[in-house]
């Protein structure tokens, strides 16, 4: 509109910058919400999203959940060992993934790595490990080393690199650039500036993301049970195949307890790191 009136008045083609910016600004303002709305409609159609069917089928959900009640409390004693296995698997898987993805994240961060080749390579590795689902990694490792928790651990660490590398990389890119520059300005080398200006800044999010990944890995190990990769997931799949839903319920309770515990530990550690910032 601005464009047209301007043309009428002056009789010449509108090329000046101020109006151009204005037009671009208003154009964008409505374009994105409109696009999101169209995408929403399109996705609702594409996924057969239908609230009516859900409401009609609701009694069936109650039936199914009813089968799970009451949980099989006798099963708990048999679940202790697989539960511990699951925690060990998730811990090692997360640890190895963290150790590998941190250097990858540094190489993938725009503000630390200037070489485009290096950056794209590490970004590629990170994206690739995220693309391949953990269950496919598990299949690969089961075929290599046989059934059990070992291939499960390997699969978890490979797949975790993708998420951790991406989140660490984003945290690194979001740091305040001034301390980094200030440290460089006094003659610090690259490694030194990472140690003294980058790591202190990303430490809280580093801890939070790593613990969240541990949480994800505890749950992911359930899926790995499908391919015989040990842990509590194996028990869950086994119970579901036997239609013993009461046992399924008790397994879910055990997983819930593990998740709550890991959250508590994460809270304690994060409080120790962040809490020191408060005046002593």
């Amino acid at each position: 509109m601005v464009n047209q009136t301007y043309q009428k008045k002056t009789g010449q083609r509108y090329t000046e910058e101020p109006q151009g910016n204005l037009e671009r600004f208003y154009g964008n303002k409505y374009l994105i919400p409109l696009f999101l709305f169209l995408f929403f409609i399109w996705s609702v159609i594409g996924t057969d999203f239908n609230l009516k069917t859900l409401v009609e089928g609701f009694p069936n959900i109650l039936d199914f959940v009813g089968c799970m009640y009451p949980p099989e409390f006798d099963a708990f004693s048999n679940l202790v060992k697989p539960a511990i296995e699951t925690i060990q698997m998730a811990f090692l898987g997360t640890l190895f993934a963290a150790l590998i993805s941190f250097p990858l994240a540094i190489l993938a961060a725009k503000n630390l790595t200037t070489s485009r080749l290096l950056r794209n390579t590490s970004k590629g590795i990170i994206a690739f490990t995220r693309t391949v689902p953990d269950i496919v990694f598990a299949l690969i490792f089961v075929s290599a080393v046989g059934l059990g928790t070992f291939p499960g651990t390997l699969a978890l660490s490979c797949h975790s690199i993708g998420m951790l590398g991406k989140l660490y990389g984003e945290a690194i890119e979001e740091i305040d650039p001034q301390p980094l520059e200030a440290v460089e300005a006094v003659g610090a080398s690259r490694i030194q500036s990472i140690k003294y200006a980058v790591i202190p800044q990303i430490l809280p999010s580093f801890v939070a993301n790593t613990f969240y990944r541990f949480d994800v890995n505890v749950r992911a190990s359930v899926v790995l049970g499908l391919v015989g990769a040990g842990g509590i997931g194996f028990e869950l799949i086994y119970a579901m195949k036997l239609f013993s839903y009461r046992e399924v319920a008790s397994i879910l309770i055990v997983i819930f307890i593990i998740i709550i515990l890991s959250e508590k530990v994460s809270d304690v550690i994060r409080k120790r790191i962040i809490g020191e910032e408060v005046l002593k």
Partner: protein
Amino acid sequence: MLTVEKLAKILPDGKPLLRDISFSVGRGELVAILGLSGVGKTVLLRCINRLTTPDSGEIILNGDSEPFEITNCNIRELRKVRRRIGMIFQNFGLVNRLSVLENVLNGRLGYTDALQNLFFGFSDEEADMALKALDRVGIADLAHRRAGTLSAGRCSVLLLQGRLCRSHICYLQTNQLLILIRPHQSESWAF
């Protein structure tokens, strides 16, 4: 002592920011660069430390021994130059999550061996030196507090100490409106 010759810097969008800047600063002189915001005072200063690479021109820092040609030296030489130049940033550039002492020690990074420092951190002598520097300005009692909890005034005092924690020959300071360049008279200011 510090000579800038025909310095030019063109912004990424093609507009020239600095054009044909030449001046020299002698030993013990205190120079202030004044100008409206956005005219390139900070960029000029960053060029002297090569945090920004100028498009053309020369900057030569004449220390006690050999002259440094800042505009085209390799990374190893650059490290040597940078540790002889103190720079105080507009927003201080402290690492808020590290302690006051560690921030002062960061000023020594140009001297320490990168690998040794990576695995063992700073030496006791360096920590001692930093503590003494803090003591001189009367904030030694804050040494183990996080830098993020300090007031702005204390931040600047702290930074000064951090940059003084080594022998330097030139000291740059950027503020909102004025920029100071101060090559030091004698080493008595430094350690």
